[in-house]
């Protein structure tokens, strides 16, 4: 179901309320839009979400974030996100293609933008002090840790927990998620089961299945930004556009794929959201995309737009396997639009 409302967006400029624009936008279910119209004045009262570098969170902010994660893990809502990620991955889009509903095609970036927004909404519902989803600025980790990104503070008990223990099936034995049971895909039933033993699986930089010995660098991100077009035909994982470079297929492994492969273990599978590092990683992907989008005014556009692209990958096509059916790439263009998303990176 697509919800469409006429929303007037207002911007606070000094003490005056100035109307910026009136647009017709889909409002995702659950969005906390509060528009007062009694006097013809529309004021969006939803606070802007702030996404911070995970390594810069205060202890209290970190505790809020981890606490909210543990709440939604324990009540089952977390695992629903894991399952939807897999289902999206298993759905060729368009039918018969090698692209799927969320990867290997143009929808890769907007799909994950919506996916993260819905996840972030759930955490904020549990604890508004979370403020926003943190991001992991992985492109400096190798440089800051003498070429050994696994020495990052991120992989400590106080943050995301350490690497898996090779003596214990590469399970993460300490940290805030040591008791989590991952939900894994069962190929024999095409369904999901809860892993019967606790602990995430991680093999930082040492998973043969991942075959990635280090994280992407700032140079890779700089090279990425020389690609000025979002995507080009045939809009799959063979193209040379920005999206495919960031996803990590062209001249890969790079960037997004490389990070999944470097973390290894649970992050290698379609069930990769099992590891909460997934959210931090994809917030950084989203940040990189947002920076690229806003280099120019107006923002660099999504592609394909309308008739020239594969069905399911075009700007106005509904994205699948999200909580709301109202999401399209076009709707997800501007992260700061408070009537739709309303977040920013700091």
């Amino acid at each position: 179901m697509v919800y469409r409302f006429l929303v007037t967006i207002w911007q606070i400029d000094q003490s005056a309320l100035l109307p910026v624009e009136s647009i017709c936008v889909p409002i995702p279910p659950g969005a906390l839009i509060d528009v007062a119209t009694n006097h013809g004045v529309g004021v969006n009262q939803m606070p802007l979400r702030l996404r911070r570098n995970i390594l810069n969170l205060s202890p209290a902010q970190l505790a809020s974030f981890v606490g909210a994660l543990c709440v939604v893990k324990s009540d089952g809502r977390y695992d629903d996100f894991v399952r939807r990620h897999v289902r999206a991955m298993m759905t060729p889009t368009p039918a018969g293609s090698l692209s799927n509903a969320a990867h290997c095609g143009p929808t890769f970036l907007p799909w994950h933008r919506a996916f993260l927004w819905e996840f972030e909404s759930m955490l904020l519902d549990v604890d508004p002090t979370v403020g926003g989803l943190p991001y992991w600025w992985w492109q400096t980790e190798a440089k800051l840790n003498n070429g050994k990104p696994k020495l990052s503070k991120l992989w400590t008990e106080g943050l995301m927990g350490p690497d898996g223990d090779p003596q214990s099936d590469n399970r993460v034995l300490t940290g805030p998620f040591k008791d989590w049971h991952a939900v894994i895909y069962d190929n024999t039933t095409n369904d999901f089961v809860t892993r019967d033993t606790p602990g995430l699986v991680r093999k930082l930089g040492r998973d043969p299945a991942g075959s990635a010995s280090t994280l992407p660098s700032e140079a890779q991100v700089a090279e990425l930004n020389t690609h000025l077009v979002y995507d080009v035909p045939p809009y799959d994982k063979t193209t040379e556009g920005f999206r495919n470079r960031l996803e990590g297929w062209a001249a890969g492994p790079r960037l997004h794929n490389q990070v999944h492969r470097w973390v290894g273990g649970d992050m290698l599978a379609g069930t990769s959201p099992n590891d909460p590092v997934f959210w931090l990683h994809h917030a950084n992907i989203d940040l990189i995309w947002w920076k690229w989008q806003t280099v120019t005014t107006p923002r660099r556009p999504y592609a394909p737009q309308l008739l020239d692209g594969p069905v399911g990958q075009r700007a106005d096509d509904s994205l699948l396997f999200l909580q709301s059916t109202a999401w399209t790439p076009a709707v997800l263009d501007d992260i700061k639009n408070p009537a739709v998303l309303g977040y920013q990176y700091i």
Partner: protein
Amino acid sequence: MLLGLSGLAAEVTIGFAVLPILLPTDAASSPPPQPIGRSRYRNRLVEIRESGPLVMVSIDGRMVHIEGSKTSRYHSHILPFRDFDDLPVLVRTLIDMSCDHVVIL
């Protein structure tokens, strides 16, 4: 576009055991998949078949998702962030992931 295993050797080596090719018993029985390789890795029985442009892999009798791209690289949505030039390597990697309890094959 999906491509077949035209370049695959007559024997498929996965792990240490190499089993002989299973030859089709009835050449006239077309579309059915043609077994072209059978082997064991980490005590799992791997069978590779091809049917026209499609490649099919089963592990202990159960099919796993494999696709071949037009660049002749192999991919599985069970291991979604990596392509493989070598199909047996992909299959071995999937079995390794299964042994790590990251997926059930």
